[in-house]
């Protein structure tokens, strides 16, 4: 385990920035998001949750993969390579680290999504323990370890007040660590003790959170039975604005649409984020199988709580990051849905 004083961070950022694109939680115009670091940017490592998740780094909101041209009645195609350099992502919270694994389950299984793979391979992920979880966090319900080093992080870090402790967990992480070793010292026995203490602290805080006791096992019934509870789906969807805030901010939502830009003799094929909340979601040549907002809202939660687990050994497609609970303009969120499906009377 290594240790770095916080006063050394600016130098560390510079060093990493020289070799990689460095993405940090940067505060700008009332929002906190993972953005490319530049000297002078306001880095905020205290607040746990960025507005949007860092999924845009591995799954860009819009990505062109083919350009086409029609010249003198001859069609030419040009494949566009995935853009972007090698990058380091520092300060990823354990829930967001886990979300990458959930996206891997989709994009890296056969047939592998080559664009996603390139973005994924180019990144080094440094996680940061959640010293100060927010009211709307409920990661524990999804087995996320907000205190320990999360699986999938190349390096795991903890905020120790005036310093950070770093633990390398992969070859990629080891290589990065070697290139910046000069800023670090070895952690002492005492530091490790303090870390254990800090981890206990975090666990205590997590227990006290308002949503810490969300219990998914209370959701009973077969897929069909849950699907058929139209009264519940109607109650929620009645109030849903059908905006895409929940899906666009969510680290695990991964639906996309394939579209064309069509010029008179040339164009581009690209893919972009879709949302089950938009009216043309699942629109096909024959028409749209989901014609009401009830059906679309139901899709969002069935996908997270039923379909995804069915296809992935019981793993839910939610990491309890709480973004939907924090940002849905009308306070529809997965916590309320879980409680309602689990039979709690007083929801809604």
């Amino acid at each position, binding site marked *: 385990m290594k240790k770095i004083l916080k006063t050394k961070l600016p130098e560390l950022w510079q060093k990493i920035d020289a070799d990689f694109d460095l993405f940090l939680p940067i505060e700008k115009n009332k929002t906190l998001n993972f953005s490319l670091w530049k000297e002078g940017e306001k880095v905020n490592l205290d607040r746990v949750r960025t507005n949007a998740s860092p999924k845009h780094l591995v799954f860009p909101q*819009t990505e062109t993969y083919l350009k086409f041209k029609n010249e003198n009645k001859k069609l030419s195609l040009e494949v566009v390579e995935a853009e972007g350099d090698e990058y380091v992502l520092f300060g990823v919270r354990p829930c967001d680290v886990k979300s990458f694994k959930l996206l891997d389950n989709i994009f890296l299984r056969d047939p592998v999504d080559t664009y996603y793979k390139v973005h994924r391979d180019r990144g080094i992920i440094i996680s940061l323990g959640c010293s100060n979880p927010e009211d709307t966090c409920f990661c524990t319900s999804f087995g996320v370890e907000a205190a320990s080093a999360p699986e999938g992080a190349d390096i795991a870090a903890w905020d120790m007040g005036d310093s950070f402790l770093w633990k390398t967990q992969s070859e990629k992480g080891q290589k990065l660590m070697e290139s910046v070793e000069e800023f670090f010292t070895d952690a002492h026995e005492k530091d490790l003790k303090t870390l254990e203490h800090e981890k206990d602290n975090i666990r205590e805080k997590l227990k006290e959170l308002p949503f810490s006791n969300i219990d998914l096992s209370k959701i009973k019934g077969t897929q069909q039975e849950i699907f058929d509870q139209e009264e519940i789906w109607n109650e929620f969807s009645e109030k849903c604005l059908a905006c895409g805030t929940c899906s666009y901010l969510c680290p695990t939502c991964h639906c996309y649409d394939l579209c064309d*830009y069509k010029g008179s003799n040339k164009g581009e094929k690209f893919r972009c984020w879709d949302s089950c909340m938009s009216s*043309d979601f699942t629109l096909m040549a024959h028409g749209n199988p989901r014609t009401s907002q009830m059906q679309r809202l139901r899709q969002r939660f069935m996908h997270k709580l039923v379909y995804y687990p069915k296809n992935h050994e019981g793993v839910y497609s939610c990491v309890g990051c709480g973004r939907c609970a924090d940002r849905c303009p009308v306070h529809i969120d997965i916590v309320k849905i879980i409680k309602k499906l689990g039979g709690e009377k007083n929801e809604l």
Partner: protein
Amino acid sequence: MENITKKIRAVAKQALINKEIDKILGWKKGDLWSESYPVFITKPEDADSLIWDSFCINNLSKYLIKELPKYDKIGIFIKGCDSTSFNQLLKDNRINRENVVLYGIPCEGMVDPEKVKKIMLNDRVTRVKKSENGFTLTNKNTSKDVLGEEIKYDKCLTCTSPNPVVYDQLLGDVVNNNVNREDRFKGVEEIESMTPDERYNFWKGEFQRCLRCNACRDICPACSCVKCVFDNSDAEISGKAKTEGEDTFFHIVRAYHVAGRCVDCGECARICPAGIPLDKLNRKIIKDINEVYGEFNAGLDSTTPAPLVTFKLEDADTFSKQGGK
């Protein structure tokens, strides 16, 4: 506030029992201190879950578009900004006045949870309560007094109609918030004082963060088209692509589309997950309308014709000379 909660419950219950209304739209408290959210009630016994507190920010008017076709008569609670929104929906012929019973609530301003968190972040706030001069924030161990200005929503700090401008019954005493009408244009003036390049870059930087989630459109009472052009896949501009051109196009079309109909309720800016100050864009247009056609506030009533859809010979701009660049 507790008094108004009592009134809300009593009024809702009675109206449902007497069948004066079939459904009532109000607010309910969630699990968190900051969470008061829309609830639709049809059974009199459920009326006891209705509340009124400093977090009842959601405007219920727009729901009438979808709810009215299902019922003969709907009751709805309405704050100042919600009432101007209601008038706009009336003016746009999206709802019928006869099918709605309006219970007006004079509003002292709503609390922005983000601002509270800034003051007491990580201190686990458990309650925010109105006090004599402002609010008291409480957590497990301590409490802290803050002034209203510190934690109210930006939109409430410049609110010019805290009292409902239309209602059937008023629950509560009229409030006076002493806002200078011109204050709301300060943000616009800052941008106006920039050079054209600076202005361009300012908006470019803002729009860059747009997620294209459409929440600004979906919450807006002036955005009430049956099918939005951005949802029309046949029009080939549904524009899900996240590119500079599409983002700018979306925002400019939206701003112009609500020009003269935007009631300045500030909801678009409040709910934008990317923190884009859409209020400044809308208010620029409101300010221009005021300067060119005389003061006009959309939603103050439901009958005055909007300046951009009417032409009078004495209009400042007679269209007889070439305008713009």
